């Protein structure tokens, strides 16, 4: 035990004197988690709280285009900036730059007349189908309205563009439905439709309640913090590869290793010491990043991290993730011939494993083959286990089941390390 203790003391001393290693293990991940959460939180707020500025160029002088602009305003997603209707495409593009707008809409000159014509045609068809006498003299062909034109900044994400398109389609349908209803009412009653009735018919739509599904029955709304803190904690824990694999290689290539091999102590004691030391480092990293989420994020207007009620599960997952990260780093260190190899391969492999593991893009958004490949990444099982706990309120049984594949991958790394050490006659 004294040999192991002396090794741990030695490893801690060397670690504490490696300022670059410490900054890579602590400062970089802390910056990363803050920056990414801030960015994703702004995207979240952009879609939920902030408004997208949209330039509207209304070339129509009728009442329906004004109703459309009012409806777009009421959606709550847009801040409408109206420009003169005589502007051409270039002037509209300039207007987007001037108003810092990502979007612009042009309403065509015949918007009102086309919608009115379509409404009359629909009304006549409806009356005929009811067996009532329609105004044959005014019978119009059922044709679509002239399309609106949506200009957009190419940097706007496709998902946002689809949302905007959906919102505008919805606004158009409201205007068209209202006009059809009014025309039909007038054809039947020969008087204007009462405002109250119109409101009741058009505004009484069914609402959509959004409910996050959890395993423990609790309702916790997911936010950027709940997604990012576990994800970047995993990334930070695996990024110890930069220090740990380098330390293993340094010991191998430096003279100290020659002497270690002649001592009456197995090198496995040294590796066990590194595992214990760096496992503690990963747990400390998790403690630091979770503490940031809990207490520091609210100070910078980010949602605070909600810790799961299953704290034992949280500790269990964190230890499993940390041990897997340590095992991977030692495995790379044993097989690498130089520190450059270990650092280069280590850093790139962690980024790739993060990407395919679902830390950067959710696995459900990946194509089929990549979904299968993602299960090979230990980081996939890490994030699944954390999300189960943080977002779905997983119980202890769920936690154990979720970390089983991770434990399997960890054993595989340990086995590879053993083979590497045996082949190099180090143990």
């Amino acid at each position: 035990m004294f040999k192991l203790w002396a090794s741990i003391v030695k490893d801690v001393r060397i670690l504490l004197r490696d300022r670059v290693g410490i900054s890579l293990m602590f400062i970089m991940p802390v910056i990363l988690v803050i920056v990414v959460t801030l960015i994703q939180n702004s995207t979240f707020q952009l879609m939920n709280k902030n408004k997208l500025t949209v330039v509207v160029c209304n070339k129509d002088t009728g009442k329906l285009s004004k109703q459309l602009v009012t409806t777009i305003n009421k959606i709550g997603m847009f801040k409408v900036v109206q420009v003169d209707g005589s502007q051409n495409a270039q002037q509209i593009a300039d207007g987007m730059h001037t108003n810092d707008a990502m979007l612009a809409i042009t309403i065509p000159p015949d918007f009102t007349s086309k919608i009115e014509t379509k409404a009359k045609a629909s009304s006549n068809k409806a009356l005929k189908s009811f067996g009532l006498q329609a105004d044959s003299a005014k019978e119009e062909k059922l044709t679509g309205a002239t399309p609106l034109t949506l200009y957009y900044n190419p940097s706007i994400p496709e998902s946002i563009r689809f949302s905007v398109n959906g919102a505008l389609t919805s606004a158009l349908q409201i205007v068209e439905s209202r006009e059809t209803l009014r025309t039909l009412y007038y054809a039947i009653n020969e008087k204007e439709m009462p405002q109250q009735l119109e409101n009741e018919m058009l505004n009484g739509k069914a609402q959509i309640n959004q409910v996050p599904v959890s395993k423990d029955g609790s309702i916790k709304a997911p936010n950027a913090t709940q997604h990012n803190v576990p994800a970047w904690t995993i990334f930070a824990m695996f990024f110890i590869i930069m220090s740990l694999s380098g330390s293993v290689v340094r010991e191998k290539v430096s003279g100290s290793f020659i002497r270690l091999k002649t001592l009456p102590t197995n090198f496995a004691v040294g590796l066990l010491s590194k595992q214990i030391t760096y496992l503690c480092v990963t747990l400390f990293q998790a403690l630091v990043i979770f503490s940031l989420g809990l207490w520091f994020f609210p100070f910078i207007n980010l949602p605070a991290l909600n810790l799961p009620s299953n704290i034992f599960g949280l500790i269990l997952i964190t230890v499993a993730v940390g041990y897997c990260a340590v095992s991977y780093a030692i495995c790379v260190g044993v097989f690498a011939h130089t520190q450059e190899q270990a650092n280069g391969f280590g850093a790139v492999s962690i980024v790739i494993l993060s990407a395919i593991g679902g830390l950067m893009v959710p696995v459900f958004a990946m194509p089929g083959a990549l979904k299968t490949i993602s299960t090979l990444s230990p980081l996939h099982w890490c994030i699944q286990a954390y999300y189960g706990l943080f977002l779905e309120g997983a119980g202890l049984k769920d936690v154990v089941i979720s970390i089983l594949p991770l434990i399997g991958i960890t054993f595989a790394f340990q086995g590879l390390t053993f083979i590497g050490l045996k082949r190099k006659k180090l143990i």
Partner: protein
Amino acid sequence: MVAMSSLAVHIENLGFHYPGNSGVTYDGLNLKIAEGERFGLFGPNGAGKTTLMNLMTGLLVADTGSIQLLGHKIGTKSKAVNKLFGFVPQDFSFYQELSPIENLEFFGAWYGLNRRQIAERSKELLEILGLSHVSYKPVQNFSGGMKRRINLAIGVIHNPKILFLDEPTVGVDVQTRHAIIDYLKQLNKQGTTLIYTSHQLSEAEGLCEQIALVDNGKIVREGNLDKLLEEYDHQNLEDLFLNLTGKDYRN
């Protein structure tokens, strides 16, 4: 003739080759070094001195034959025999980020010493080797001579019965070389067998009593240094060395 019971090193019928026969090859080598000797192993570059030392310390494993240190076979799974010897490699074999005392604490523990033994030996060695004033400073800022002394201190912290020294004074000034050689003689007087290799033949002359000249994986001559000089009618080890190994360049 050396009695079997007093042998520090006993090599019998040693066979060894590197993968692909890329280096020196030993085939049926025999060597006996008595306990308490100051034994010098000399030869030109690539002759096989370091390979032989690595085989004796277990860093390399022999293909055939056996190597025994004080009657214990080396190269078995048990590392108990490793307690018997100390090794001072040519390269600096310690942690540059740590101080001398921290290096001694770690290596002392791995040699199987307890806290008290480590503390006592560390203090003693650092004083003898003139490193007390820098005990707690990181080694990486030390001069080459100071690093050589630390390299030596770590190799002897557990009072080994046999000490292997691979060019222990390379690159140091005259003062440090004298200090190291004096200390090695002192260790030998206390009973430690010294097995030493170096290209500093004048230094070796002052240290070694018994020598072996190695070339191309074979022992060319071995025996008492004074007797060999007399036998070949040479004034010094360098002349004897050139006589027995030739003047051609070696790789």
